[in-house]
């Protein structure tokens, strides 16, 4: 059965050069509705830069991008209204509590108060922060901040969410909880999710398709099976993603 799939994100030769240093190198790809799409790559590979270009937070040096059909360079505000973004360093106002923070973000998005209040309550409950809602964010653990980041997405209800290193620095328990919550975002909230990480296990568990990105170049993309077949002519059962990843990593580095 062939399903008509709609490309939610499209890029062509997207490139970013910082003072002569190429951070993202002619990257072309498509993300389809409902996917959980992973960028896998070591530190400094250019994952964050790629996301920032799709958000309209950084201008590409070359190439084009469309997010939900909108050009993030020319209509940055429109794109920002449609997408959700969880930055990698979890910056929150430490002297606000979770509810104040989420209200502020909802206000920035122009959400009416009664809708925002309702969603905030629901979101805090979903991510399991309902008991810490009145605590200052400064006193939150890293895992709690990460979950607050997800709560923000639940309140905003974007069509597409970008998650930058969502499990960075979390212990195994918190990581599993996070993976569960991201699955929930995808299934229950029906968000298309683009996440980037250097953490294999998570990408493996969550993503239907993924890309490996090293030194700004996309070196492979597809499902686990196609990746394994393309490169090694074997079925994925015989190779773990880790082995594939390491293989690419060594080849490129």
């Amino acid at each position, binding site marked *: 059965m062939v399903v008509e799939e709609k490309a939610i994100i499209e890029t062509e030769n997207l490139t970013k050069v910082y003072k002569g240093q190429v951070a993202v190198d002619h990257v072309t790809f498509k993300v389809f509705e409902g996917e959980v799409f992973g960028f896998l790559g070591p530190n400094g590979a250019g994952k*964050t830069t790629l996301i*920032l270009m799709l*958000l309209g*937070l*950084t201008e590409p040096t070359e190439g084009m991008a469309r997010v939900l059909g909108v050009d993030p360079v020319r209509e940055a*505000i*429109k794109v*920002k*209204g449609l997408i959700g*973004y969880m*930055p*990698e*360093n*979890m*910056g*929150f*106002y*430490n*002297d606000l509590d979770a509810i104040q923070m989420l209200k*502020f*973000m909802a*206000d*920035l*998005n*122009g959400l009416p108060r009664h809708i925002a209040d309702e969603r905030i309550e629901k979101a805090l409950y979903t991510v399991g922060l309902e008991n810490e809602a009145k605590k200052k964010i400064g006193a939150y653990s890293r895992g709690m901040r990460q979950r607050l980041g997800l709560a923000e997405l639940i309140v905003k209800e974007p069509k597409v969410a970008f998650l930058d290193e969502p499990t960075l620095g979390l212990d195994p328990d918190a990581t599993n909880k996070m993976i569960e919550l991201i699955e929930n975002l995808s299934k229950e909230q029906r968000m298309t999710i683009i996440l980037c990480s250097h953490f294999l296990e998570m990408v493996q568990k969550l993503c239907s398709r993924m890309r490996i990105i090293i030194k700004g170049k996309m070196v492979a993309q597809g499902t686990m099976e196609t990746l394994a077949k393309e490169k090694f002519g074997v079925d994925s059962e015989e190779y773990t993603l880790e082995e594939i990843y390491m293989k690419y990593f060594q080849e490129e580095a």
Partner: protein
Amino acid sequence: MHGLKVIFKKELADHFSSYRFLILFSLICMVSLIIAYMVSMTIKNEMKDIAKPQFVFLMLFISQGGLFSFVQFVAFFGPLIGLIMGFDLINRERNEGTLSRILAQPIYRDAVINGKFLAGVVTISIMIASIVLVITGLGLILMGVVPGIDEILRILVYMIISIVYISFWLGVAILFSIIFRSVTTSALAGLAVWIFFSFFVSLGANIVAKAFVPDAGPDNLEALLKQITIQRAISLSSPIILYSDATATIVDPTKKTTRSFVFVGPFEKLSSERFSGPLSLHQSLLIVLPYIITLIAITAICFAISYIVFMRQEIRSA
């Protein structure tokens, strides 16, 4: 537009709930109260047997009770208020990663600096207004003087100039907080500018004037006058002197060109004798209008630079 409103409201709440503001405000209140008290006492003693002089109410602001007058205090300390309120407004958010978070929301980038600046200006206005009210109240209680319409208008103009003046320094602080990633560096840069304008400009103006027109003895009025002209022209490049001159004319209608205590030179006395009677409010306004416009203009320039730099800056926290 909604972005500006939301940021403005948050920043305003931040100011009023911060210890920084509380300490700053208490400090200024304390000093103002002491000055007002000392001035009231002096005036009360001196006024015992004589008729009430003109502008007694204004004397609350311009008399040097012990060390310096309220007007001089604001001229000297006002820059610090602006700098302290603004030196970390942008770079702190950048370092903590909240800047990229809010800029990923559907708001214009300039809404952030506009909102922060406006909230600062409103905070400054409330601060100045409440202090002037406190001083007025104290004057009423201690001396029993009721300000006339003319005096009230003068104080209102004075308040507006002061708000613009402190806002200028807030603008300088915001500019540095955009340029420098480090909070300490931006605080230091602000202090350096403040010290430069407070001390070096007036000193430099003196030296330059004397270099152009050598001293020719106290009898050579022409040379003296030239020196003063050059010195004044150079001094006016300092916002602090601009402010001191403008406020002196407004709140001290009998004196016209008092400089704040840091800058008083021997030549001011000469020019202060140009007029004999007090200036009317209308005359005073005409004199200070260019000063006010200049202050607003340099604030706008400072803000324009902030705007240009901020709009082109790479926003990433790492």
